[in-house]
């Protein structure tokens, strides 16, 4: 089947917490609440990586979490994007020199979109999701 730009109106997001402090989680929930209402663009939080188009990864990935992050990445059907939310995922944040880190997220899985902030504001997270949709369309070679 020829790819169509369907993702821009139906992006299902799976939230993966890899050792985050819950700050980013609270902001993600704020972004999903009625004030910003991402469902009007078809964005939906799903409970299983099998249903997801985008992985919203938070936290600096501790050693124990590395395997799980890889496994969830493999469980997500293609085409998919990975959005890294928060400073921890980008650089390790305040845990940057900890003995128990498997590195920031992009040492473990390829990341497409980075959303900075500790924690990032809901607007920033939504902006990241919009960027993810653009990336997915590029991956499909679909709409401009």
């Amino acid at each position, binding site marked *: 089947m020829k790819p169509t730009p*369907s993702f821009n109106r139906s992006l299902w997001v799976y939230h993966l917490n890899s050792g985050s402090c819950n700050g980013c989680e609270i902001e993600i929930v704020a972004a999903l609440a009625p004030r910003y209402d991402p469902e009007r663009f*078809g964005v939906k939080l799903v409970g299983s990586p*099998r249903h997801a188009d985008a992985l919203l990864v938070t936290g600096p990935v501790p050693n124990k979490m590395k395997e799980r992050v890889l496994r969830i990445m493999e469980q997500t059907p293609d085409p998919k994007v990975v959005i890294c939310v928060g400073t921890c995922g980008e650089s390790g944040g305040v845990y940057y020199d900890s003995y128990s880190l498997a590195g920031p997220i992009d040492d473990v899985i390829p990341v497409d979109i980075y959303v900075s902030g500790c924690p990032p504001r809901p607007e920033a997270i939504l902006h990241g999701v919009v960027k993810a949709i653009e990336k997915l369309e590029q991956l499909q070679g679909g709409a401009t």
Partner: protein
Amino acid sequence: MIEQLGGFLYVVLGTIFVALFGIGFGLGVLGVDRKLTAHMQARIGPPLRQPFIDIRKLLLKENIIPENAISWLFNAAPVFALAASVTILLYLPIGGLPPVLGVYGDIILIMYLLTVPALAMVTGGFASGSPYATVGAQREMITMMAYELPLATVFIALAWRLARAGVQDPFSLASLTSTPIWSVAGPLGIIGALILLIVLIFVTPGELSRVPFDTPEAETELAGGLMVEYSGKNLAMFYLAQGVKSVAMASVIVALFLPWGLSEFVPGIPALGILLDFLWYIVKVLAVLFVSVSLIRVAMARFRISQVVTMYWIYLGGLGILGLTLLFLDSLGGV
């Protein structure tokens, strides 16, 4: 021979029409439900065609079959669910049109057919080999056993009252729709029938696994439950089945309790009558689903599985028996 061929063609074309209508209208109904729910939660909500976009996207996605799944069963379950949901519609009157297979089945058959999509989902859940899906499948079976009692009570009470009123063949949908319960029952019976309508409205979310009876699919505890391992094309088929099943369940309520048409207001123009009846039927289905799915979904939180059973067996079962008793007393009062 020619007649047989004509009948055969009628059934085949009717089935294709009903399947297309059921899938299209089912997705539309899901979109309306999401929009209304969003408005009730002070949100704007997705556009009405959102389910169509979702389906198109799901068809583009990779279709993963887990390593420890029984693959043929895992792939067959969504097909069964969709096919069974469409089959229910074949036995139900759509608008003023008689059911395609109306001669071959009655309300008892529909009661059994309603369990088939749920059974297909249970099979798919067990076949996917995930512990989450297994727990979801067990919960779905318990829910199924729980709502069967009130559902059967409603069907039997109505058909029995019609039989007492001297209606021939009270279980067939033709007689259930041509003589609505309101026209044969007295004051006591009308109260009883209203109670039965309430029971049926509360059975609907259980039948469709929607809040507050969505314990088998609980997103927060079971990560999607039965559906947890499904992706891509298979998930899209379950999505379609959900829409068709919503239409089927609403059509059952419409056929039993709100069967009136508009065609008698435009005598002499059969085409206009059919069209009016059809639009009126769509309005009725949307109204029924608004009350039984959207309104209940917004107003209530999810029940635990033990509460689901108590709710259906004790409270709604009790209400059903009360309705049945009222209809019985009504029939004693003079037929």
